[in-house]
């Protein structure tokens, strides 16, 4: 067995300057490549942009969908960047932010249901695409998940499961954000449930994978 002084000697000999900003560049590369692939995949699936995109720009549900997915994406990305470093933690305010976004979306959905006749519930909850929406989001999240996990594997996360969950949330929420350009569903309950499911599954998958893949 090598002695510790020998080890130190071998590590120090021929030391090269460490690349600056490696953490951000590597994470940016992994996630960025994933996003490009996802957008390419969305185009390939012929999802296209929602036909009513120009008029939708002026409607609140359009923006709420982007705020819901966008804020969760932001939370996921910030958590990824934090947890990439050994001493990194998810702060209480970040947890509060994530819970706050989910609560706000739930409140919007509840208000919309409360103000609608029961006969409309099915349309508000199932929309026209409930059967494919979460699956598409999950599929679209895969390239981002893979890219982010690849980048994270050269980092030093000391909470592998949580780091994996963050990677999954960032991937799922980015995919949902991208998918929102194609999807013309606008009911709040629909967005909460099916977008929520589409983001939750990648988060769980990320946590499970992180447990095994992000050990070092």
């Amino acid at each position, binding site marked *: 067995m*090598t002695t*510790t*002084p020998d*080890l*130190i*000697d071998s*590590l*120090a*000999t*021929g*030391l*090269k*300057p*460490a*690349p600056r900003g*490696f*953490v951000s560049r590597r994470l940016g590369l992994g996630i960025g490549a994933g996003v490009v692939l996802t957008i390419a995949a969305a185009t390939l699936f012929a999802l296209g942009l929602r036909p009513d995109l120009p008029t939708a720009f002026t409607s609140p549900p359009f923006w709420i969908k982007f705020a819901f997915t966008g804020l969760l994406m932001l939370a996921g990305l910030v958590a990824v960047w934090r947890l*990439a*470093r*050994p*001493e990194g933690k998810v702060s209480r305010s970040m947890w509060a932010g994530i819970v706050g976004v989910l609560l706000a979306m739930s409140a919007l959905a509840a208000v919309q249901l409360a103000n609608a006749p029961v006969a409309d519930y099915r349309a508000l909850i199932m929309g026209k695409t409930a059967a494919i929406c979460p699956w598409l989001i999950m599929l679209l999240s895969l390239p981002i998940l893979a890219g982010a996990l690849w980048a994270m594997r050269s*980092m*030093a996360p*000391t909470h592998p499961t949580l780091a994996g969950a963050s990677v999954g949330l960032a991937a799922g929420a980015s995919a949902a954000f991208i998918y929102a350009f194609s999807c013309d569903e606008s009911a709040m309950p629909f967005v909460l449930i099916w977008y929520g499911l589409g983001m939750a599954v990648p988060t769980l998958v990320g946590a499970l994978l992180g447990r095994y893949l992000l*050990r*070092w």
Partner: protein
Amino acid sequence: MQPVEERLRRLMIEALAGDEKSYRQLLSDVGDRVRAYYSRRMGPGHASTEDLVQETLLAVHTRRFTYDSDRPFTAWLHAIARYKLIDHLRASRAHLSVPIDDMNDLISADDSEATGARHDVEKLLGDLPEQTRGFIRAVKIDGRSIAEVSAASGASESAVKVAIHRGLKLLARRMKGNDAP
């Protein structure tokens, strides 16, 4: 605490810029600190301590670019040392309870206890007759054989043995606080 943090952080920043000398100094300092940290967690002289020290040094090396020079180095190092310890305990299926608030052990860590013990032995030995002291040091501390010492000193093997035996008995009495012969 501050001087340690300041010094290690400066060494780390120099090392990240490619300064081999600073890096050597940093690694050897870090090695001593994590050795004391692991000894305290696992009991002194535990067989895995040195493995853990080396694993931690390797981790510091391969993940050094994850250190953000705007943040405390000791917190970074502590997180790595703790992670490696948890990983080790998990692998050995031992009971898992690693405190999260023991960063100070890393900062204040040194081997002063062991050093203190060495000083005490020297002091006690100093009270013995010179030849006896020489025998005890050669056999009991430096680990040479009775035959070697006998050959070197000219005294017979049994004389060496007897001198050592008497010397140790005297030391034992002294340590009990009983100076009377």
